[in-house]
């Protein structure tokens, strides 16, 4: 609990510091809105031209898009320390100061960064979810709402876990590894759309290695009453937990890697 209080306090402070330059903050937030709006426009254009995608209606596609953008940008909003700043912490040696303090390194890294500009991206995601839910005619029940919340929370953990791969790599090689972006940002691009439209290798990658399909598509498809691959209802509750599993494994690896950390000395 103490850790949580610390985290909330740090985030509050960072937020205040971001708001010190209001005009810049507003400009950047606006830029984010246009960015995510552009991504959403692509989905709208696709629906306009193609109407449906392998049995998924336009409304379904908006819902999938919304769940991805809400999860991805929530992660970037609260986990900026991992998703953005970590490699530079290693490069500049800022990580050293964390090692001397009486708190977990991961906690401190997470406390060290937030990206409130993403709030507009999340807003676009929420709008897409509402639009998708309306167009798909989802009959909401408390259970469905619960699955949605679980799916988003577990997806956030999954995305955080995937970004930690990059963090782990950056401990061993000071140069950042662009290739890891393929599964984080690539995963975002690919899994904005339901997994079953892709050929097998891509499906395997995003089901087994980076299980976006399990944390997002299985529950979302169940919510829309079109179960993915016709899997039974209980899978919608169980498969998202894979996100937590990835996070736990990556946390363990992260701590293992930290033991091999050698400061850049600068």
């Amino acid at each position: 609990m103490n850790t949580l209080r610390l985290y909330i306090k740090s985030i509050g402070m960072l937020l205040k510091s971001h708001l010190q330059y209001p005009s810049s903050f507003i400009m950047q937030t606006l830029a984010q809105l246009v960015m995510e709006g552009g991504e959403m426009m692509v989905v709208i254009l696709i629906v306009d031209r193609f109407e449906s995608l392998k049995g998924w209606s336009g409304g379904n596609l908006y819902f999938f898009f919304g769940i991805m953008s809400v999860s991805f940008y929530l992660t970037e909003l609260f986990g900026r320390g991992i998703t953005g700043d970590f490699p530079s912490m290693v490069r500049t040696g800022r990580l050293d100061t964390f090692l001397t303090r009486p708190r977990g390194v991961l906690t401190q890294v997470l406390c060290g960064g937030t990206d409130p500009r993403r709030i507009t991206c999340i807003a676009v995601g929420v709008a897409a979810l509402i639009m998708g839910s309306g167009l798909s005619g989802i009959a909401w029940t408390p259970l469905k709402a619960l699955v949605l919340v679980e799916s988003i929370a577990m997806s956030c953990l999954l995305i955080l876990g995937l970004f930690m791969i990059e963090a782990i790599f950056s401990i061993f090689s000071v140069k950042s590894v662009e290739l890891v972006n393929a599964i984080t940002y690539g995963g975002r691009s690919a899994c904005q759309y339901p997994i079953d439209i892709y050929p097998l290798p891509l499906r395997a990658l995003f089901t087994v290695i980076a299980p976006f399909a399990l944390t997002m598509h299985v529950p979302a498809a169940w919510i829309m009453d079109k179960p993915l691959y016709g899997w039974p209802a209980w899978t919608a509750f169980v498969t998202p937990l894979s996100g937590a599993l990835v996070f736990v494994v990556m946390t363990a690896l992260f701590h293992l890697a930290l033991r091999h950390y050698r400061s850049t000395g600068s």
Partner: protein
Amino acid sequence: MSYFTVFKMRLRMELQYRGAMIGGILCQMFFGLILVALYRALYDSKPQTLPIESVATYVWLQQAFFRMMLASDSELVDKIRSGDIAYDMCRPVDMYGFYYARIMAQKLMGSLMRAVPMLVVAFLLPKGWGMSLPSSFVGLLAALPALFLGLLCVCALENITVAFTMKTLDPRGMQGLLNLLMITLSGNLFPLTLFPESWQRVLKFFPYSQLLDAPIRLYTGEYAPASAFGVYALQAFWVVALIALGAAMWNANKKRMIVQGG
């Protein structure tokens, strides 16, 4: 000639980062594959008049030359923030031309080094997944000058973005907005050829569609080689207009420049 020397120096520098380049290429190829897979799935649901091969070619060419569009001179932005740009004002060359040459070298080399290996692999992919041959040999020949004019155009656009940065000092806001406009309206995010027809009629006159969209359409044969000179004229018009606008903005900025820091 001094501009040419600046250009050559930047070319050499761009050649230094080969490791980052390979990672970048693989990442970009993966994105290309995802996009092609998505469009193939969409075509399975509802085939369009535009053949899928042409969409795949569009995606690969956009991915291959991605670096031409999004490679800002981060050193320059830092210089603006730190005030070091004052040193560049001491040089006996026009600042606009100096940076135009630098940005062009970076974009040309950055995109060529990535495009060549990527396009080779894209050609090897099976039909409908990879890149197809140009509609005709003349089409290919017609696309090359268009690509060069597109490069001139994108460098002029980049200099306008930098001019805005000089005003606001914060690169992220305005630069972000302009870059997004570029990515969306140049067809990188979604092929312009799949935009609604009524939009396309307007969008093809925008400066953004001159960068890669026009050369790609010449390549795939959507613009007949005979119409190439019309395309070049439009591109040349934008190059001149954008350079004039950019140079005017730089000159205005020079008059009211306050150097940061001390």
